């Protein structure tokens, strides 16, 4: 009798917990319309002809890829439009992912064979140095501090701090129109520290959450008026919901995204730069942009490669 009561109690408790957990998840949907990554947009994506007879003498990383016959590429999995993992199919999609595929094809490897590996911001340098990934494509800003640890090919995209607002909101046109508006970003992130230190809005109007998706949700429910971070990330959200969101388009910082490579592999870096230059020249880069971030409705400026 006792045992039965206990069992029922545990069962009821467990059910309550699972229901509540489900509710909590429902309350924080990652992004509206996250599912439409594949379908219609996939058609517009360019295909990448796989190069043949590529041989990079003196590149240890290339030799490793060659002997393995496959690639492991580091990426982010939570940035819509840039690097996002579809929770149902487990496939990666977005601008960064397409760049990774372009590079793979240029190196002579079928992009279908890439294994994408999620690497968090804090672990990037170590993962690249260890050789756990062959290269890394994931909103990786080129900075002098990082250049001491890894090499960068690119930049393949130039981003800058910008503002995401509701489509029907014309009162915010740039960073100087933020006074009296609620501005949201990730807790402690560089963009929100900039808003705080430059007094772009009152301290009481600064909102910080763990994830950008939570900020976007609050933007849609009109609890905040603008979300701020790199425009590439913002365009990703805007491209998923172009009817309700737009990127203001007045950047006020410069972030150059590079492909992270092993520090000692100049041969591979030169080759990747060559692949990127070709894609910029023959319009492939533009096609990739239009099929991913370009869906937000905002135009992009082509980057100029830094060949150091």
């Amino acid at each position, binding site marked *: 009798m006792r045992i039965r009561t206990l069992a029922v109690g545990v069962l009821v408790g467990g059910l309550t917990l699972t229901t*509540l957990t489900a509710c*909590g998840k429902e*309350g924080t949907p990652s992004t509206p319309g996250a599912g439409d990554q594949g379908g219609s947009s996939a058609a517009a994506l360019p295909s990448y002809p796989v190069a043949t007879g590529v041989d990079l003498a003196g590149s240890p990383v290339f030799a490793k890829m060659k002997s393995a016959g496959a690639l492991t590429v580091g990426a982010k999995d939570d940035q819509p439009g840039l690097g996002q993992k579809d929770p149902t199919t487990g496939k990666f999609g977005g601008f960064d992912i397409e760049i990774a595929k372009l590079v793979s094809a240029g190196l002579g490897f079928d992009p279908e064979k890439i294994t994408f590996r999620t690497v968090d911001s804090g672990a990037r340098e170590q993962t690249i140095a260890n050789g756990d990934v062959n290269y890394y494509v994931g909103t990786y800003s080129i900075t002098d501090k990082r250049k001491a640890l890894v090499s960068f090919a690119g930049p393949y995209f130039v981003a800058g701090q910008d503002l995401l607002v509701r489509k029907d909101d014309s009162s915010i046109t740039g960073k100087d129109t933020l006074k009296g508006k609620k501005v949201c970003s990730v807790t*402690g992130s560089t963009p929100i520290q900039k808003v705080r230190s430059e007094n772009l809005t009152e301290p009481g109007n600064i909102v910080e959450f763990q994830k950008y998706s939570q900020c976007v949700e609050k933007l849609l*429910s009109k609890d905040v008026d603008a979300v701020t971070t790199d425009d590439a990330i913002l365009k990703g959200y805007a491209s998923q919901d172009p009817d309700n969101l737009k990127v203001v388009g007045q950047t006020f910082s410069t972030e150059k995204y590079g492909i992270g490579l092993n520090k000692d592999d100049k041969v591979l870096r030169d080759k990747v730069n060559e692949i990127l230059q070709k894609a910029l020249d023959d319009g492939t880069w533009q096609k990739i942009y239009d099929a991913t971030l370009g869906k937000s409705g905002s135009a992009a400026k082509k980057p100029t490669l830094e060949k150091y």
Partner: protein
Amino acid sequence: MDVLFNNLDLFGPFFLRTIELFVLSAVGSLVWGTVLAMLRVSPVPVFRAVGTAYVTIARNTPLTLVFAFFVFAYPLLDIVKLDYFPAAVTALTVYTSAFICEVVRSGINTVPVGQAEAGRALGLTFGQILGQVVLPQALRSVVPPLISTLIALLKNTTIAAGFSVAEAGAIRSYLSERGENQLVGLLWVALGFIILVAVLSFVQRSLEKRWSVAR
């Protein structure tokens, strides 16, 4: 030392916010937790059921979910608008009061039944027996677990960092973006909490001394 002094603009106001958060939710949970304990020992079955249901739900739900509810789901209900700080106080109070309730109830259980029977023999009502005879004795006997629960509450305030309250829990992410040594930063935050907990432990010791029951 540099990490602390170069970033005093973070440590000062952020720890102050932590203390505000703690004091408000501690007062809230002590009051609401005691009310819940009274519900749970009341002779009315409906009250008992309500108290039990509340404790079961609030104590079984992870605190982050309680926070997420008040910050993301509650506003959609469109009742009373809660700003982020009051929402954090509410979430912490809702959660902690379930634990306070159980501590107070265990204290009530230590009071011999004869006390209540004597009160009833004198013609006291249920409210009078509880408020003037049982609860004062119950609270004395549960000082250590009560303070432990409050210490847990103090540390739980750091969760508010993820829900737009700039308190001590957010310092680490600020420091990492500023390029400061994160380990050193974390040690300073930990030291701050150790000092705050030391204050609570001191309160516990002096209360225990003053309220010790001669048996």
